[in-house]
């Protein structure tokens, strides 16, 4: 059974394992990683599963090496992934910039724990929201999806691969320790029901191939090593041939495109869940593991007579601006509950502007809010 790529059926399992299974179902056949709590179970599952299905697992000497090896494997034509938590992500940021600059399809699972520094290794956090987006220097865009359940650890990992392949961009499954270590039911569909996207290959003769010449959707088709294209890629600013080019023109041709291929296609990437938002005067925004408490709070609040709805961004980057605006149409107060000291709230404020008050309900302690704590904070905010 475990020697099949897609383990169709039902299982009671952990979020981290679901992410590993999602990756394999999406076609991932290379994993490089370094042990770190609370993401280690993903590496352990990959080390066990990949050799049985023709894939390769390697434990590298650190997270910098892991993330770099993922780029090397992706450029060699294999869908590739790594998984880590905050301290590892901090090391990977150098290479995430390289992945963005060389337009590498790659997936990173970040199971967030408390920080900064070594912080709270075994406790939950949502403190890497901004690091995922802004962690490397310079201007670039990434994609990040946030799962709220074991099922979504599986489903969204597949989507991460599809998005990474479509847009040639580092893509995050931005999970927290709650969903990473939680155990619940996972349903894995039959292989032929799983939608898989593969990167666009070059269609021109090998001699005419320009590795960084974009198609209409701003994404260049991708050749891989070993097939005779003899192409070159660099972390330096480069022209369409991939050659280093230290001019203002080259930077202007490249950097806006790296951002715009995500920004201009955002409508095809963003997704969010709404509950009871119609006529809601209070809009509660929460994501990931915290959204589970928030959903309960919204249901309880509704039963207690509050006009309250939930907005759960599933894609955090790009942020679902239009979806939030729609969900907040009738809102008089917006509350943001997150397991940090205020990160996504800034993005919510950018969308809401100062039309209605935006309140933060932070909890940077390793534990999620209880639904009652959220409702208490909302009542206090309304006074």
């Amino acid at each position: 059974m475990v020697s099949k790529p897609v383990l169709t059926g039902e299982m009671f399992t952990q979020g981290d394992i679901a992410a590993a299974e999602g990756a394999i179902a999406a076609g991932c056949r290379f994993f490089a990683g370094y042990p770190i709590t609370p993401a280690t179970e993903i590496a352990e599952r990959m080390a066990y599963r990949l050799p049985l299905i023709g894939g390769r697992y390697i434990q590298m000497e650190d997270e910098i090496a892991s993330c770099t090896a993922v780029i090397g494997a992706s450029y060699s034509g294999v869908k590739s992934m790594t998984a880590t938590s905050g301290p590892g992500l901090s090391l990977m940021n150098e290479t995430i910039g390289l992945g963005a600059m060389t337009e590498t399809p790659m997936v990173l699972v970040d199971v967030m724990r408390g920080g900064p520094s070594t912080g709270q290794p075994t406790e939950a956090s949502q403190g890497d929201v901004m690091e995922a987006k802004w962690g490397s220097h310079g201007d670039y865009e990434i994609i990040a999806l946030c799962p709220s359940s074991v099922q979504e650890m599986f489903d969204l990992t597949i989507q991460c691969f599809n998005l990474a392949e479509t847009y040639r961009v580092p893509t995050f499954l931005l999970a927290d320790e709650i969903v990473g270590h939680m155990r619940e039911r996972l349903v894995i569909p039959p292989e032929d029901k799983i939608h898989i996207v593969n990167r666009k290959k070059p269609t021109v003769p090998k001699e005419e191939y320009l590795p960084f010449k974009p198609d209409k959707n701003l994404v260049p088709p991708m050749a891989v090593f070993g097939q005779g294209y003899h192409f070159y890629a660099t972390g330096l600013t480069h022209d369409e041939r991939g050659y280093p080019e230290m001019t203002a023109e080259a930077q202007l041709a490249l950097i806006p495109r790296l951002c715009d291929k995500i920004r201009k296609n955002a409508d095809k990437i963003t997704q969010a869940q709404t509950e009871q938002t119609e006529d809601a005067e209070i809009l509660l925004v929460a994501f990931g593991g915290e959204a589970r408490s928030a959903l309960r709070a919204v249901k309880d609040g509704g039963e207690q007579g509050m006009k309250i709805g939930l907005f759960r961004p599933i894609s955090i980057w790009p942020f679902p601006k239009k979806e939030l605006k729609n969900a907040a149409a009738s809102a008089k107060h917006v509350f943001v509950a997150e397991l940090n000291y205020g990160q996504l709230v800034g993005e919510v404020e950018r969308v809401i502007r100062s039309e209605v008050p935006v309140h933060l309900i932070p909890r940077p302690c390793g534990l999620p809010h209880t639904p009652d704590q959220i409702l208490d904070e909302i009542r206090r905010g309304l006074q």
Partner: protein
Amino acid sequence: MTATRAAQTTAEHPLLSYIRRDRFPHIYCAACGIGIVLNAFALALQTLELDLDKVTLISGIGCSGRASGYFATDGFHTTHGRAIAFATGVKVANPELKPVIISGDGDLFAIGGNHFIHAARRNVDMLVLCINNFNYGMTGGQQGPTTPEAAITVTTPFGNIEHPFNLVSLAAASGAVYVARWTALHARQLTKSLEKALQKKGFTFVEVVSPCPTLYDRYNRLGTGLDVMKRYRDIAVVRNFSDPMKAEIDYRTRIVCGEFVDTEKPEFTELLARQATELQKRGEP
């Protein structure tokens, strides 16, 4: 005579097919040793008639780090120090490929030192060609992990007090299956060494001591590029298969060159493949 000379100047360089012509002129200073090393590498590719589709050139950052961009193979220019980690991903994902890393002493052994020792320990099939010019050239001649004691650089203006790495000893201790050192003067031996290393399956390491006429050699008053080559002639000795721990490298007195290790041991991606085949034969675990 005139006719012969005309014929010579219009004839194509015999190694031109290995080079990206549209990348020239290159960035290297006159009398730099990197050109000699790249020529030796191209000659080795030509002699072995390797399938260029399967050679992946990878480098880090620095003068030598630009080398990957001058060859007409697949190439990748990583972040500083990460060429070997990248190459590990390439080799594991597609074992048909032969990664070749051309990079400098600072890139490979300061910021990239950890990747070097671990790839050697795992014995991942790749050739690491280190051009050692004793300093960081690209950034203006700073002290690095191979800068000799007492040498002057822009960041050791009063003389270097650090003990440098002996790279061949480090490579041998880390598990490389082939280890050699030459200077840029030893062009023929270097070419032969590269041929040998390219044919071996496993982690192979070739160090080339190279002039840096613009920075290191100037700060240390070693004369012109030609003077440095003459110095190599005077102080370099070949001691094949001597103890790499004792392979001195002192630009003033003695540089011990030669092959130090040539051995066999199971290669990493072959071991991975062997284990996977055995697992699949055995059936469900």
